[in-house]
C-alpha cells in the first residue's frame, strides 16, 4: 500500500511543482518583455543609455526613460494583470467561460463612468474624478446584474444575459454623449475609446495600482472557495462555502479592478477573456495558481502588444486595442486547436 500512496504523492508534488515552475517562468518572461519595452522607443535611446539613465540623471534620456517609458510599461503590466484576474473571477463566479469584464457590461459601465466624469468635470487634472466615476458605474452595473440574478434565483445564464443587456445600454449611453457632445468632448471620448497608454504618468499608476492590486490578496485567499464554486453552488455549500456571499464580494472586487484598469487607459478589451483561458489550458483550473497565472499572462500580452504597437511602425503608434487583438487572437486560436481540455 505504501508504494501506491507514495506514487500518488509523487505525482501530486510534481503537478504542484509544474504549476509553480509555470508561474516563475511567466514572471521571467514578463520581466524580459518589460526590459525589451524599456529599451526600444521612438527616440532611439538604446540599451547603454537606458542602463546609464537608471542610475543617474542624464537629462532628456533620463526623462524619457523615467517619465515616459517606465510608466507606460508599468501601466501595461497593471492593466493586463487586472483584466486577467478580473476575467478569471467573472468566469468562475458565473460558471461561464464567456464571462469577462467587457462581455458583462462592467467594462462598458466603467467606460461610461469615466466619460461622464470627463464631460461633467472637464478635462485636465481630475484623476480621482475619472477613477471614481469608473468605479461607481462598474459597481452599479455589477450590482444590477447581481440583483437581477438574485431575484430570478442566481443562475449564471441570467447574469450573463443581464450583463450583455447592460453592456449595450452603457455603450449606447456613451455613444449618445459622443453624438450630442461638443467637439471637445467628442474628441476626448475618441481618445478614450481607442484605448491608450500615452497619457499615463506616475500619479495615475499609483491610483491604478491600489485599485488593481489591493483586492488581489483577498481573492487569492479564497482560491479554494472558487475551486469549489466551479462545481456548482450545492457542492460548494456542502463544503461550507456561502456561494451568494462569495459571489457578491468577489464581483465587487473584480469591478474595482476593472475600473482601475479602464479609468486611465480606456477600452482595452479582449485580454480579460483570453488571458484566463490561455492559463487554464496550460495549468488547469486550480485557482491557487490560476489567478496569478492569468494576471501574469495578461500583463505579458499587454506589454508585448504596447511595445509592438509603438515600434513596428515607429514613430507612428498602432492603437493598443488593435495590436492586442492581432497578438492575442492567433495565439488563442492556436491553443483552441491544440487544447486537451474541453470546457465548453
Amino acid at each position: 500500500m505504501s508504494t501506491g500512496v507514495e506514487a500518488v504523492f509523487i505525482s501530486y508534488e510534481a503537478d504542484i511543482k509544474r504549476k509553480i515552475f509555470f508561474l516563475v517562468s511567466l514572471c521571467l518572461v514578463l520581466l524580459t518583455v518589460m526590459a525589451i519595452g524599456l529599451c526600444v522607443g521612438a527616440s532611439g535611446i538604446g540599451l547603454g543609455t537606458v542602463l546609464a539613465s537608471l542610475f543617474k540623471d542624464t537629462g532628456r534620456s533620463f526623462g524619457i526613460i523615467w517619465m515616459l517609458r517606465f510608466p507606460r510599461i508599468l501601466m501595461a503590466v497593471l492593466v493586463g494583470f487586472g483584466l486577467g484576474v478580473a476575467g478569471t473571477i467573472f468566469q468562475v463566479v458565473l460558471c461561464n467561460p464567456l464571462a469577462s469584464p467587457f462581455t458583462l457590461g462592467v467594462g462598458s459601465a466603467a467606460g461610461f463612468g469615466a466619460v461622464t466624469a470627463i464631460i461633467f468635470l472637464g478635462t485636465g487634472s481630475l484623476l480621482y474624478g475619472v477613477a471614481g466615476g469608473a468605479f461607481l458605474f462598474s459597481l452599479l452595473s455589477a450590482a444590477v446584474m447581481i440583483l437581477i440574478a438574485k431575484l430570478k434565483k442566481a443562475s449564471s445564464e441570467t447574469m450573463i444575459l443581464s450583463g450583455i443587456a447592460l453592456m449595450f445600454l452603457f455603450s449606447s449611453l456613451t455613444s449618445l454623449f459622443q453624438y450630442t457632445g461638443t467637439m471637445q468632448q467628442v474628441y476626448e471620448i475618441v481618445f478614450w475609446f481607442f484605448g491608450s497608454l500615452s497619457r499615463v504618468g506616475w500619479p495615475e499608476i499609483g491610483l491604478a495600482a491600489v485599485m488593481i492590486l489591493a483586492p488581489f490578496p483577498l481573492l487569492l485567499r479564497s482560491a479554494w472557495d472558487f475551486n469549489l464554486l466551479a462545481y456548482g453552488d450545492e457542492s460548494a455549500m456542502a463544503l461550507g462555502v456561502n456561494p451568494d456571499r462569495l459571489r457578491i464580494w468577489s464581483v465587487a472586487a473584480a469591478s474595482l479592478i476593472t475600473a482601475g484598469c479602464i479609468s486611465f487607459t480606456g477600452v482595452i478589451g479582449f485580454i480579460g477573456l483570453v488571458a484566463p483561458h490561455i492559463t487554464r489550458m496550460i495549468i488547469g483550473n486550480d485557482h491557487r495558481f490560476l489567478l496569478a497565472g492569468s494576471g501574469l499572462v495578461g500583463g505579458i500580452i499587454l506589454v508585448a502588444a504596447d511595445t509592438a504597437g509603438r515600434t513596428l511602425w515607429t514613430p507612428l503608434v498602432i492603437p493598443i486595442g488593435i495590436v492586442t487583438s492581432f497578438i492575442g487572437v492567433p495565439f488563442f486560436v492556436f491553443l483552441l486547436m491544440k487544447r486537451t481540455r474541453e470546457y465548453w
Partner: protein
Amino acid sequence: MLEARGIFFEYNGNKVLAAVRASVEKGGVVSIVGPNGAGKTTLLKCISGILKPTLGTVHLDGRDALGMPRREIAKQLAYMPQSMFFRFPGTVFDTILSGRRPYFAWRPSLKDLEKVETIIEEMELSELSMRDMDQLSSGQVQKVLLARTMIQDTRYLLLDEPNSGLDLRHQMELLETVAALAKGKGIGVMMAMHDLNLAARFSDRIILLHHGKIFSAGVPAEIVTPAKIRDVYGVESIVTRDNGYLNVQVLCCSGEQELDKPGRLPNRLSASGRKN
C-alpha cells in the same frame, strides 16, 4: 443521531414537503424511496442545510444544525449531490482534496494530503489521480465524489442517489463501500434511492415518500410490499424473498391508479420498474 422533525418546504407556493420526519443512528443506513417528484432530494437538501426548510428542525447529536455556521455543519455532515457539472474541472486529486476544505484555510496540511492519498489508493483511483474530472466516466466520477464525501471525516453522510448512472458492478462496489463505512466506522448514512431491491438490501430502515409526505416508514420487509408499491408507484408487483434478499418483480401498471392520478405517466413508471 441525525434527526429531522416536522420538515415543511415550499417552493413558489407549492408544498414540496409536509411534516416529514427522518432520522438515522450512527452506524445505521436509512434509504429514502419514492416516485419521481416525491421530495427525496429536497428532503436531503433540507437536512444538509443547503435548502432552508419553511418549518421544522434538524438536530445533529442533539445540537440545532440549522443555526450552525456552514463550515461547522460541513465537519459533521457530508452531502453528496446526485450529479455535478465540470465547467472548469480540476484534477481528481484536487477534487478529493477539496473535501478537506472545512479543515484548512489555504494550504492543506501534510495530514490532509496523506488522507487524500490513502483514500485514492483504497478506492483504486491512483491511475486517475492527475486527470481532470471531465475526462472520467460517470462511474469514476461517482467514485471520486464518494471519496470526497468520505474524506470530509463526518459522522453522517447524505447521499443523493449515489448509484445513479452506474453499471451493475459499480453499483454494488459503491453500495458495499457505503455499507462498510456504516458498519466499520459507525457512520450514519441517509440516502435517496430509486432501486427498491438495492434499497431493501443495503438499508436498516426505509422511508417511503409520496407527494411530499411520509407514506410509510420501517424496516425493509414492512415497506417493500405489493400493496404499498401499488399505492405509491401505481404498479402491480410481486415481492419474493430469494437467497435472503427481497426481490420486487413488476407486473403491469395498476388501472385504477392511472385514472386516479392523471398526472402520472404509466409508461415511464413501468419502464423504471422493469429496470429493477
